[in-house]
């Protein structure tokens, strides 16, 4: 029977950031994630912005962590070896009223230490961002706003934690937190019991679905959905900066942004939804997104959409809850991590470590902590000479599997075989970008199924989009005929 000092429930960006932080210390840490891949909850479906911290309320935890975390990214991304770009945010004023409100926020942001923030008049705005609505009044420019791939960020945090000794149990669902005399003692999971002294609940939107702990703390979680459209990289409508409308009380509004991979993306709206899995896109939602986006960039249409998706924010109240549980000792909560959770994640990790220390976990630094993560090879980003040399050494980088993104067999092999490797089509896609281009796996789908078999031993019938019941192939050719054709279909 395994025993851990700390178990983190949830392998989203928050759980993985906490895991990486704790992997600096001489303790036994595990992450339990119910899905077969990391980062498949809220973390996979968001805007991917590292917010500048413009217009946050620094008296909230989320506001404070945003301000503190943004400057950490340059160093963090170089350690993790992931792409990140401070492309700058533009918060656009449509009229004089917006202007006045935004001017006020500029002063506040300066006081909060947001670097380089300034007002751009109409002409300056137009020059910076030619696609912008001609009727715009001007904009606040926040150069420290950035873009990142949320999944890659999370996986890199996870892989770095893993190489520093954190154990990951994927496909392992926590059913119940077991306590003894008010103290955490262990976890009942879909794969048996785990003994543990301290537990961190970082289970996102589902943090209240096992046990009564969250309810006992008086917390209720609600889902707020946001929908998006992603465009072909060759779509001629392009922006360089992340464009925001003037924010409202509840949300930052519908945004127009480039992604770190160079696609135009628009969204999200904000709508309260009932279920915790209401991940559909809707006609009204997409319309709302398009209308919002067109206020910023009027030329946006639907001619080159390659993907629509939606994400769910886990909303507890107006703030993050990062604190020791009052009623269950040894339990730390990192819940209600709505936006800007992605940005704040590195600081959430540090904060949780401090809390654990406060409630009695001994933290002694590991002298051999490795802060660097080796990235996967990316022939598409090399010049021809480097690329030819790489292929000469390893011919697997010569065979292109995904035609749209130009991803090779070598990259897919690495994605499957590297630590916390891909076991689903979506897993390969998020790691390598294979299947995420304009043909959406029409061409490489059959090849990816073969590679999952070759490198992960997953049979074609088990190959799935994202685990669960999402298998792509159901029968062999002729199988239905042998079983009696349509009769079987009617059963």
């Amino acid at each position, binding site marked *: 029977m395994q025993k851990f000092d700390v178990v983190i429930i949830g392998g989203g960006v928050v759980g993985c950031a906490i895991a990486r932080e704790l992997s600096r210390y001489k303790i036994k840490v595990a992450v339990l994630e119910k899905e077969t891949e990391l980062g498949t909850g809220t973390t996979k479906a968001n805007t991917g912005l590292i917010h500048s911290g413009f217009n946050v309320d620094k008296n909230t935890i989320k506001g404070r962590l945003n301000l503190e975390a943004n400057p950490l990214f340059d160093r963090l991304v170089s350690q993790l070896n992931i792409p990140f770009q401070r492309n700058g945010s533009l918060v656009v004023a449509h009229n004089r009223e917006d202007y006045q409100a935004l001017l006020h926020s500029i002063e506040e942001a300066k006081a909060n230490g947001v670097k380089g923030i300034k007002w751009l008049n109409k002409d300056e705005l137009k020059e910076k961002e030619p696609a912008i609505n001609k009727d715009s009044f001007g904009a606040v420019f926040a150069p420290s706003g950035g873009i990142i791939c949320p999944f890659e960020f999370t996986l890199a945090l996870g892989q770095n934690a893993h190489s520093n000794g954190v154990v990951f149990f994927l496909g392992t669902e926590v059913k119940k937190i077991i306590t003894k005399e008010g103290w955490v003692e262990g976890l009942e999971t879909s794969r048996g019991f785990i003994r543990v002294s301290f537990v961190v609940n970082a289970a996102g939107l589902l943090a209240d679905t096992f046990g009564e702990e969250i309810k006992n703390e008086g917390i209720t979680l609600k889902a707020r959905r946001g929908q998006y459209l992603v465009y072909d990289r060759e779509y001629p409508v392009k922006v360089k900066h992340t464009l925001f409308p003037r924010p409202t009380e509840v949300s930052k509004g519908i945004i127009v942004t480039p992604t770190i991979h160079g696609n135009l993306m628009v969204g999200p709206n904000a709508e309260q939804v009932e279920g915790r899995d209401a991940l559909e896109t*809707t006609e009204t939602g997409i319309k709302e997104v398009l209308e919002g986006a067109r206020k910023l960039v009027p030329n946006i249409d639907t001619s080159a959409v390659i993907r629509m998706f939606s994400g769910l924010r886990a909303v507890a109240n107006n703030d993050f809850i990062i604190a020791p549980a009052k009623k269950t000792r040894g339990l730390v909560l990192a819940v209600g991590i709505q936006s800007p959770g992605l940005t704040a994640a590195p600081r959430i990790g540090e904060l949780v470590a401090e809390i654990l220390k406060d409630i009695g976990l001994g933290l002694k630094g590991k002298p051999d902590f490795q802060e660097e993560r080796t990235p996967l090879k990316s022939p598409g980003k090399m010049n021809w000479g480097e*690329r*030819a040399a790489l292929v000469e050494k390893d011919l697997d980088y010569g065979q292109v599997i995904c035609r749209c993104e130009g991803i090779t067999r070598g990259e897919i092999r690495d994605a499957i075989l590297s630590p916390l490797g891909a076991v689903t089509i979506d897993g390969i896609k998020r790691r390598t970008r294979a299947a995420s281009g304009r043909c959406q796996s029409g061409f490489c789908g059959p090849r990816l199924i073969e590679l999952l078999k070759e490198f992960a031993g997953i049979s*074609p019938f088990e190959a799935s989009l994202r685990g669960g019941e999402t298998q792509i192939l159901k029968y062999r050719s002729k199988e*239905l005929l042998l079983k009696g054709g349509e009769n079987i279909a009617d059963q």
Partner: protein
Amino acid sequence: MRTSDVDVLVIGAGPAGLGAAIKAKENGAREVLVIERDFEPGGILNQCIHNGFGLQYFSQELTGPEYAGRFIRKASRSDVEIQTDTMVLAVNPSREVITSSRHFGLQLFRAKSVVLAMGCRERTRDAIQIYGTRPAGILTAGTAQRFTNIEGFLPGKKVVVLGSGDIGLIMARRMKLEGCEVRGVFELLPYTNGLSRNVVQCLNDFSIPLYLQETVTEVLGKDRLEGVKTIKVDKKQSPLPGTERFVPCDTLLLSVGLIPENELSRKAGIKIDPLTGGPVVNQDRMTNIPGIFACGNVTQVHDLADDVTVESEIAGTAAARFRKGNLQGKELSVEAGRGIRYVVPQRIDVSEIKKENPLIFFMRAEVPTRQVKIIFTQEGEEKFGETLPFIKPGEIIKITISPEMLKKFKPDKNILVEVGKGNNNG
């Protein structure tokens, strides 16, 4: 990087690429190299195991692989080299081509002429904005065809087909033959987009219902597709409230359009016609970049492999001739007018053609129409006309103009192709 010189380099070993390569060889090109990213030559035809190919070109009814096979054998007899499992990564205007493969690594080829024959790809769910969840069971018809006919798997057993393009019609029948329950083919327009013969042979003969002016708006099901919501539309394609229905199914096949595969062409600086989605070409199928030619589905989405072959032979012949220098004269443009969606070629050099064979124009109608005269005009003056009993967008129109008739055209005035006035729709 290994570097070599070739006379003619062809990208893609579908019927277009193979046809062009063989013709280039016949016309005197020495090293003719075809680069193909798939494991086998043949292109999309390898998965088209149904018959219906070759009726025009060979006057014989063949299956897709049989049709392709004839060209593959001929290519090997003619000493055309085919490198399979090799992807073209880049082409530049100086006709340098970089390829990548698991067998040869990266290679650089310097070609005297290049023929683009990359075929096309299918439009996807997100491109046409079907709302709802993201379950397994939604595939393009061509991908499902590959799974079924080449890999030997079925994606499900209760099938809805959206879109009445040829691949959709053929896959509706294919699924039925595999023992699936095919719930119907849904089409937004009041007419089908495929060949009439496919409507008869694939749907009518198999009692598969065709629902015209009815489309899929939303998919349901969390992990696995559980059904689709459909709605009827009026003539303007606006949804008709109250006509929504739920059709249970575990598989949705999309046949909602093909897009010529021109990423390489765009990067090479080749001008693309927004109407065809393919390069703007002249009568020799040469693009705006001298020495770079294009044929087959990369130029315009064809209905028939036979037409692809015709086009490829034009391109291959010209590619071989080009080695000896650019023969390009002064060109005039050919534009699509009233009732015509597009015309290929988009440019011609009249003086050049007079000495040559007849000129074939490919075009598509905007709407189905009976008894139409298609006219070619210059400065509003009719130069040539041909009356057809029936035209529809799903079937390419081919009009051949003889060298004799071509003499009537002025060598320096643009040509407009349109449907003559006074034609009735329907």
